[in-house]
C-alpha cells in the first residue's frame, strides 16, 4: 500500500485573527497554499525561518487548529481521514494513535504533575483500552525502546527529574506508545545541546528505519535536515518555495532564498582569515572559580516571589537548573530567610578553576554546552559577576576583587554584548539614549553624546535618524546592532560577546558576525566570543577554549582544536555538529554510533546527565 498517501495536504491555508479581546480586526495568513504528501516510511523536513508557517502547517496535520479561532482551508487527509470533516471523536482517535507529535520544548510539553510513565500509559490506554497494568508495561517498554536506562524505575519519575535529552526521549516514547503511522516532530532538538541533538536525531532516524513510520520534521536548521530526512520543503512566508530530495535541494538549490539559507549556515570547515595578532596579553584569568548556592526549590506562594538566593544577573543557573532538576522558569522561592543561618546548601561550581588569556586584538572563542559555565566566565571577565576566587589580570593588574569604585576606571575597557536582544535594551528608553548612557554617565555633554551616538549608529549599519526610536520597533538583528554600538560607545579594548547570534535567524547571524569582524579590525578590539555553536565559533575565532562543567578541557589555536581535537569531549562535540552534506551526515551518524558504543562499554552514557 505504499501508493496510498498517508498524509495528503492540498492547498492548505491557515490564518489567524489579529487583535486582542474583541473580534478580529484583521487576519494574518500563516500558511498559504501548502501542498505535500507523505507515504509510509517517507520523511520530509519542513524548513524555514521563524514566522515561515512551518509549525502552523505541522499542527494542521493533527487538526490542532480546531477551536482556536484559526481559519483552515484546503484539505488535510491523514491515514484516510479528512480532518476538516472528521468529528471530534474521530480526530481524537487519530491523534496520538495514528499520527503522533513530538514537541520543541520537552519540559513544558510533559505534564509536570504526572510521572512520565503514567503520561505515556494514559495515551496508550485512551487509544487501546488496555488495562492499567498493560499500559504501564507498554510505557516501560517504549521508554526502554528510546534508550532510557533502567526504564522500569524511571517510568515513575516526574519530567523535572529528567535531563533535557531524556525528556525528549520520553516524549518520543509517548509518540511511539500506539505505534503511529506518522510522526510529526516540531523542532525536536532546538532546545537541546548539540551532542544531545545528535542523539535525538539519530534516534528518530533509527526508529523510522525500524518501524517504517513516516516522519515530518519541522526545523529552522538546514544542518539538521541533511542527516534526518529524505525530502525537504523550504518555506517562506507561509509558502513552499522549494521542494525536493535533500540531496538536490541542499546541493543545488534553485531558489535564491534557499541558497541564502544554505550559505548562512555556519560551516565547521570555515576558517577565519584574519591577519595574525599580537602575542601581547590583554586580559588573563588565573584559577578562576565561581560557586553558586545550589538552586533551592522550596516554593512558597506566600513568601517572596524571587528569593535573594538566586544570584541575579547570572545567566548560568537557569541552564544549570535543567540539569539538576529544578524547574527553570518557575519561581523557586525560598521562604524563611532565617534558613540561611541554619546551614549552607551545597555549592554548585559554575566555573571551577579556569585559567586562560585574551590577547590584544584577537578573538577568543569559548564553546561549551549549556551549563558548562561559559557565560559565568564571560561575565566574570567584565566583572559583572564577582569571582569566588582566582585572579583577573587586566594589563597585569588584578581586578578580581575590586570594588565598584575601583572598577570604574577599567569599566570602559571591558564591555559586553548580550545574548538576548530583547532584555539587553531598556524598553522604556530610546535606543539612542541607551547607547549614550555610558557617555552621559561618564560626563559627556548631551549634544556631544548625541552626535557621537549617531555616528555609532551609522557605523553599525543603522540610520542615525533612528536615535529616538524605541527597542520594540527593531528586529532582533537590529537590536543586536544597537547592543554592539552601545558596547563600542566607550571605546573598549575588550568586548565579551555572549552568544551574540544564537537568538537570531541564520541569515541575520551571518550579518552580525560579519559586523563584529569588521569592527574588530577597525577598532583593534579583542573579542571573547562565547557560543554553543561550534561552527560560528570557528568562523570568528583565532583561538578557542572548550568548556565543560566549569572547566576548560581544551584550548588552543582554532584550527588545531577543530582539526585535531585532543580531548574526547571535544571530539564528541565536533562529531555531533550537523553537516549540510547528506552523505557526510550519514558517515558522521555511523561515527557517533561507534563513539556511543565505546562510551557504553566504558560504562554510562555520559552525555545524558541524569539528575
Amino acid at each position, binding site marked *: 500500500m505504499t501508493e496510498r498517501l498517508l498524509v495528503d495536504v492540498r492547498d492548505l491555508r491557515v490564518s489567524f485573527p489579529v487583535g486582542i479581546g474583541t473580534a478580529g480586526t484583521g487576519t494574518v495568513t500563516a500558511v498559504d497554499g501548502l501542498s505535500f504528501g507523505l507515504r509510509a516510511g517517507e520523511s520530509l523536513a519542513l524548513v524555514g525561518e521563524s514566522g515561515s508557517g512551518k509549525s502552523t502547517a505541522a499542527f494542521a496535520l493533527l487538526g490542532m487548529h480546531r477551536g482556536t479561532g484559526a481559519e483552515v482551508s484546503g484539505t488535510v487527509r491523514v491515514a484516510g481521514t479528512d480532518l476538516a470533516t472528521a468529528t471530534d471523536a474521530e480526530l481524537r482517535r487519530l491523534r496520538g494513535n495514528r499520527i503522533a507529535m513530538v514537541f520543541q520544548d520537552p519540559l513544558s*510539553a510533559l505534564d509536570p504533575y504526572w510521572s512520565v510513565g503514567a503520561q505515556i500509559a494514559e495515551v496508550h490506554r485512551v487509544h487501546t483500552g488496555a488495562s492499567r497494568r498493560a499500559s504501564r508495561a507498554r510505557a516501560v517498554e517504549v521508554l526502554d525502546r528510546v534508550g532510557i536506562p533502567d526504564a522500569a524505575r524511571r517510568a515513575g519519575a516526574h519530567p523535572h527529574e529528567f535531563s533535557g535529552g531524556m525528556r525528549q526521549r520520553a516524549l518520543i516514547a509517548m509518540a511511539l506508545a500506539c505505534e503511529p503511522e506518522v510522526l510529526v516532530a516540531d523542532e525536536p532538538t532546538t532546545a537541546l545541546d548539540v551532542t544531545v541533538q545528535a542523539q535525538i536525531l539519530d534516534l528518530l532516524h533509527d526508529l523510522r528505519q525500524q518501524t517504517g513510520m513516516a516522519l515530518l520534521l519541522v526545523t529552522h536548521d538546514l544542518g539538521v535536515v541533511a542527516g534526518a530526512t529524505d525530502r525537504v520543503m523550504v518555506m517562506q512566508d507561509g509558502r513552499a518555495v522549494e521542494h525536493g530530495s535533500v540531496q538536490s535541494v541542499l546541493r543545488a538549490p534553485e531558489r535564491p532564498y534557499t541558497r541564502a539559507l544554505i550559505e548562512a549556515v555556519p560551516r565547521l570547515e570555515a576558517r577565519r582569515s584574519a591577519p595574525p595578532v599580537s602575542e601581547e596579553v590583554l586580559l588573563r584569568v588565573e584559577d578562576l572559580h565561581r560557586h553558586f548556592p545550589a538552586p533551592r526549590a*522550596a516554593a512558597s506562594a506566600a513568601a517572596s516571589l524571587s528569593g535573594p538566593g538566586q544570584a541575579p544577573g547570572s545567566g548560568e543557573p537557569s541552564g544549570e537548573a535543567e540539569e539538576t532538576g529544578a524547574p527553570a522558569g518557575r519561581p523557586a522561592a525560598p521562604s524563611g530567610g532565617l534558613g540561611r543561618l541554619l546551614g549552607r546548601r551545597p555549592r554548585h561550581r559554575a566555573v571551577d578553576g579556569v585559567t586562560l588569556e585574551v590577547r590584544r586584538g584577537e578573538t577568543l572563542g569559548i564553546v561549551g554546552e549549556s551549563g558548562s559555565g561559559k557565560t559565568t566566565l564571560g561575565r566574570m571577565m567584565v566583572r559583572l559577576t564577582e569571582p569566588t576566587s582566582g585572579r583577573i589580570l587586566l594589563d597585569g593588574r588584578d581586578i578580581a576583587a575590586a570594588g565598584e569604585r575601583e572598577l570604574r576606571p577599567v569599566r570602559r575597557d571591558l564591555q559586553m554584548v548580550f545574548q538576548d536582544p530583547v532584555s539587553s535594551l531598556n524598553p522604556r528608553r530610546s535606543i539612542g539614549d541607551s547607547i549614550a548612557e555610558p557617555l552621559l554617565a561618564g560626563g559627556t555633554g548631551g549634544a556631544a553624546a548625541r552626535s557621537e551616538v549617531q555616528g555609532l549608529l551609522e557605523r553599525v549599519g543603522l540610520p542615525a535618524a533612528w536615535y529616538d526610536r524605541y527597542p520594540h520597533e527593531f528586529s532582533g538583528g537590529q537590536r543586536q546592532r544597537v547592543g554592539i554600538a552601545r558596547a563600542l560607545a566607550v571605546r573598549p579594548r575588550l568586548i565579551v560577546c555572549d552568544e551574540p547570534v544564537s537568538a537570531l535567524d541564520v541569515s541575520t547571524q551571518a550579518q552580525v558576525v560579519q559586523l563584529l569582524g569588521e569592527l574588530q579590525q577597525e577598532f583593534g578590539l579583542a573579542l571573547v566570543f562565547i557560543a554553543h555553536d561550534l561552527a560560528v565559533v570557528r568562523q570568528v575565532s583565532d583561538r578557542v577554549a572548550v568548556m565543560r562543567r566549569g572547566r576548560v578541557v581544551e584550548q588552543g589555536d582554532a584550527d588545531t582544536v577543530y582539526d585535531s581535537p585532543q580531548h574526547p569531549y571535544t571530539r564528541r562535540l565536533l562529531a555531533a555538529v550537523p553537516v549540510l552534506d547528506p552523505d557526510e551526515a550519514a558517515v558522521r551518524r555511523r561515527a557517533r554510533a561507534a563513539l556511543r558504543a565505546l562510551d557504553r562499554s566504558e560504562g554510562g552514557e555520559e552525555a545524558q546527565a541524569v539528575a
Partner: protein
Amino acid sequence: MLRFLLRRSVSTLLVLLVLSAVVFLLFYATPGDPAILACGKGCDGERLAVVRHKLGTDLPLWQQYWHFLQGLVAGRDYDAGTDVTHCAAPCFGYSFQTDQPVLGMITSRLPVDVSLTLGAMVIWLVVGVGTGVLSALRRGGITERLLTGLTLAGMSTPVFLIGLLLMMLCCSWLGWLPFPQYVPFGDDPAAWASNLVLPWLSLALITAAAYARMTRSSMLETLAEDHIRTGRAYGLSERRVVTGHALRGALTPVITLLAIDVGGMLGGATLTESVFGFDGLGRLLVDSVNHIDLPVVVGVTLFAAFFIVLANAVADVLYAVADPRVALA
C-alpha cells in the same frame, strides 16, 4: 523536610517574638491606665498601687515583656494577694478586665471562628473554584462575562455590607432564617448550621470571588501550557485534559491561597463577627483593645499571627505535596 520544619519553626518564633514586642510597645503608648479601670470607683492612691502591682503595670516595659516571655516558655506565678496562682506554660497571663486566663478566653472563642471558617471554606471552595473553572472553560462566551461580572461584584462588596444585606433580606424581610446566634456544634448541630448559614454565605461569597478569579486565571494559564496541548495532540478528550491535567496544575496555587486564608480567618473574622454579633476572637480582640486589656490583646494577636505564619508553612508543604517539582529544604 526536617530541615524545612526546623527552619520554619525558628523563623515562626522570630516573627512571633517581634510581633509580640511590637504589640507591647504599641499598647504601652495607649492612653488610659488599666489599673484605674480595674480598680473601680473611689480607688485611692494606695489601693491603686496595689492593683498596679498585681497587674504588673508598675514595672518598666521591658520587664513586663520579659515576664510575659518567661510565662510563655516556662509558665509563671501570679501573686493575687489572696493566694499564688501558677499559670502553666504556655502562659499568656490573665486578663486585666476579668482576671481570666487569656489562653482559656482564646480557646473558648476559637470554636466560633473555626465554625465560621470551615463552613465558609466549603462554600467558597465549591462556588469559587467552580465558577473559576467554568468561566475559564467558557472563555469569551456570555457565561464567562456574566461570571466575571459577578466575580468582580463579589470582590467589591465589603464583608459587613453583604452580611448586613443578607440579614436584612433573609431574616428581616423574608423571615427565612433566624437572626444568627452562635450555637455550639455539640449542643445542636442543626441549629449550629442554620445559624451559621448567613455568616458563612457572607464570608464565603466574597472569598469565593477571589478564588474564582484566581482559579480562572490559573486555569487559563495552565490551559495555555504546552503539556495541555500535548494531551490534546495525543487524543485525550477535552474532559480528560481538563480534569486530569489542567485542573491539578490550576488548583495548586488555590491550595496555598486556601491555607493562608483559612489561617487568617481562624485568627478572627472581626467584621463578620461584628455584623452578626458573634463572639469570636476578632471581637475579643476589638473589645480588649478598647479596654486596654494588654494580656488579651497580646495573646489574641499572637494567636492570630501564629495561625497566619503556620498557614504559610502549611501552604508551603501543601505546595510541595501538590507540585512534585518542589522540594522542601
